């Protein structure tokens, strides 16, 4: 109440000033009253009209000031008390079916254990076109049973690599007063949110982190990301003569400082990586082929970089180079400085780079960086064309892992008929399942064979879990306030219009 009075007093100051000026100032003119007697004869009407004219504006302004004070002080809360439930749509939520965190969250929703009867369901995911997090509206919730809810979520939600909970602030800006966030990685402190911890998956897990040809070692280097998986990864190679996979025994080495293991494979071919022990249904197929057919540029900048890779031949179906729309938060990113090249970036795979250009081009698995805009090295001037500057990845500028996420998302989007396509189109031995299942093969098919889709080592955005997630306060919905303020203004305009019309 005190805040209301304070706001009202503050708003009354200019209104009173206007009133004083209007009452105290009058124009004095000499003019005979010979034919003004008729006005003298109706002093009461004149008084009423004059009083109304004097105080009408002030009355309207006073009404508006009271409304504004009510809204500003929060006494009059016009925002709808809506509830939003948001599911974390990252890969980790779907890991470990049938007891994945996603399944647990859906079950809670179906049973109504969240204390919200009517709510709107969102999924926090990743938009590959914008290169940032997005909120997918799943419609009204609270009326579906578990199978129907599961079907809705699985049908509508694309595969995400990560989720940034800071995007939940958009829900508050839309007018939601209560936001429930269902996740397997709850932020340490999020006072604005109601976080429901679904718990991490308990299933051991591994998946290929990178697979590429190392020109120095003249061998394929395959890395695996491990989660609670301490056993060696089983390796099988497809034999054309036998028509089946043959088990291999190759030494696996751990990468210091990371949950990665690495192995080197000298021979190309179709390899199968699986869990040797346990009930895990993990089975990855990776075709390891020399990097001759890996470059197929899409877009002007990829065309430019494709020229830098002389040993790479163009493949009609390859998608290793592609321009991806990119909106950088870094103001140093020079948008529009080179015609046709702005807002684009390209991730260059490791095996296809000449040794001389290697210092200037960042490999895919390490390219979690911003594209840097610097002077062109002498080696690149030849392909620069009319531009004296080009974009390329500076290894010293590693700071943003979303670069690879964008690229991989684009690849998955381009791979129509890939992992979600009909199984009959897959060649023999190619096994895959959607990423949300526990058995994930990150490969998809093209006419030339199976392409590997490498995942980033972590699903995380730069947002650290232990950061205090402070979201903007719930905003009042602007439309009801605008309508409320519009009403007195419309009334005032109507009265003035009628006065003017009578005066004509």
């Amino acid at each position, binding site marked *: 109440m005190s805040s209301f009075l304070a706001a009202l007093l503050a708003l009354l100051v200019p209104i009173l000033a206007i009133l004083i000026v*209007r009452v105290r*100032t*009058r*124009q*004095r*003119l*000499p*003019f*005979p*009253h*010979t*034919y*003004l007697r*008729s*006005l*003298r004869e109706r002093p009461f009407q*004149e008084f009423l*009209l*004059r009083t109304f*004219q*004097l105080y009408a504006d002030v009355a309207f302004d006073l009404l508006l000031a009271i409304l504004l004070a009510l809204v500003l002080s929060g006494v009059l809360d016009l925002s709808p008390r809506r509830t939003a439930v948001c599911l974390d749509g990252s890969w980790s939520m779907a890991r470990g079916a049938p007891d994945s965190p996603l399944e647990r969250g859906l079950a809670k929703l179906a049973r109504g254990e969240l204390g919200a009867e009517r709510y709107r369901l969102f999924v926090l995911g990743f938009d590959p076109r914008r290169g940032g997090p997005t909120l997918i509206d799943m419609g009204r919730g609270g009326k579906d049973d578990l199978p129907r809810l599961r079907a809705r979520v699985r049908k509508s939600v694309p595969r995400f690599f990560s989720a940034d909970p800071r995007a939940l602030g958009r829900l508050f800006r839309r007018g939601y007063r209560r936001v429930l966030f269902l996740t397997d990685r709850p932020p340490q402190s999020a006072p604005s949110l109601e976080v429901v911890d679904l718990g991490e998956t308990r299933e051991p897990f591994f998946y290929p982190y990178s697979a590429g040809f190392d020109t120095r070692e003249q061998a394929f280097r395959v890395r695996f990301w491990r989660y609670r998986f301490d056993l060696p990864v089983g390796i099988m190679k497809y034999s054309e003569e036998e028509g089946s996979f043959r088990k291999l025994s190759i030494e696996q080495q751990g990468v210091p400082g990371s949950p990665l293991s690495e192995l080197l494979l000298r021979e190309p071919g179709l390899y199968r990586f699986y869990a040797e022990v346990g009930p895990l249904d993990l089975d990855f197929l990776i075709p390891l082929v020399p990097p001759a057919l890996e470059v197929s540029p899409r877009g002007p900048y990829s065309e430019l970089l494709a020229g830098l890779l002389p040993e790479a031949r163009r493949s009609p179906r390859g998608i290793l180079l592609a321009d991806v729309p990119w909106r950088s938060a870094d103001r140093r990113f020079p948008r529009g400085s080179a015609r046709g090249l702005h807002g684009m970036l390209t991730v260059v795979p490791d095996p296809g780079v000449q040794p001389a250009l290697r210092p200037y081009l960042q490999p895919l698995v390490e390219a979690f960086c911003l594209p840097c805009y610097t002077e062109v090295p002498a080696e690149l001037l030849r392909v620069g064309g009319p531009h004296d500057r080009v974009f390329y990845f500076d290894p010293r500028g590693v700071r943003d892992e979303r670069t690879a996420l964008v690229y991989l998302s684009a690849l998955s989007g381009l791979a129509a008929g890939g992992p979600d396509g009909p199984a009959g189109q897959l060649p023999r031995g190619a096994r895959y399942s959607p990423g949300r299942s526990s058995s994930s093969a990150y490969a998809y098919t093209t006419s030339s064979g199976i392409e590997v889709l490498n995942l980033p080592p972590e699903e995380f955005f730069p947002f650290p879990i232990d950061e205090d997630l402070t979201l903007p306060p719930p905003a009042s919905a602007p439309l009801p306030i605008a309508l409320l303020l519009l009403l007195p203004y419309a009334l005032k305009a109507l009265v003035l219009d009628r*006065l*003017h019309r*009578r*005066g*004509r």
Partner: protein
Amino acid sequence: MIAVDRECAAVSRLFAKKSVRFKVPVRLKSENPIFRRKGSSFNLKSLREYQPFDDLRKIDWKLYGRTDRFYIKEFFEEENERFFLLVDASASLSVFDLDFYRRFIASLACIFLDLRFSLDLAACTHRLEESCLNLRHRRDLPRILAFLERLPFAGGTDLVPVLKEVRDRYRPTTLFLFSDLFDQRLELRHLRMFRRVFLLHFHTPFAGLPLRFTQVELRDPESRRSLLLSHNPSSRRRILEAEREFLARFSAGRGGCHYLRLERGAPRAPSYWRILETLYE
């Protein structure tokens, strides 16, 4: 310092040329036969025998031929028509442009003198205040200017008793009334006591007032009363209606009453010309 419009000389010269074919309004100088003086008109005053002090050129030689005696014919004196200029000098005239007002009266008087009309000039408020009579020549113009300069423009307006007094005291046949007509009692019937009246209305339109505020206090310069108006379209409409009714009271003059409205800043020379043309109709 009041000045006469520069166009006055041209107007009077051109009008004198233009109007030679019209009949100049003349009259005997005195209507009372006792005070009629001899002059050069065609009205015979007397016939008497020649005296030694008489001019030989005035001897009627035809009578000498018939009677063989010298006789002298004497005629009455004639003059152009005498106009009476009644100038409203009330306080309400201060609303109008006083320089315009004085200049117009002085210029018109100058034109009349150039055209050899005789003038009587009087100022009035609610009574006859001051007069300046027997103006016959251009050399009388400084008297007119001094008279107009002395006008105080104070007091109220009551033209009805003033017109009666003018009629009774001066008996003018043609009256020029210079006024803003802010008089509650004056009506057209009060002007019928004169054979010919030129009603020169110096009007300040209400729409021309520079109204800027919501509240306007109109102060009557004569009664010194104030009227508080709210400047809105409704009150403005009512005032303009009242003003139209007020103007319609005088503009409908017929017969010998000629109405001419003048507003601040309007060109004066066309008004002079129009008055002269009306005068010679």
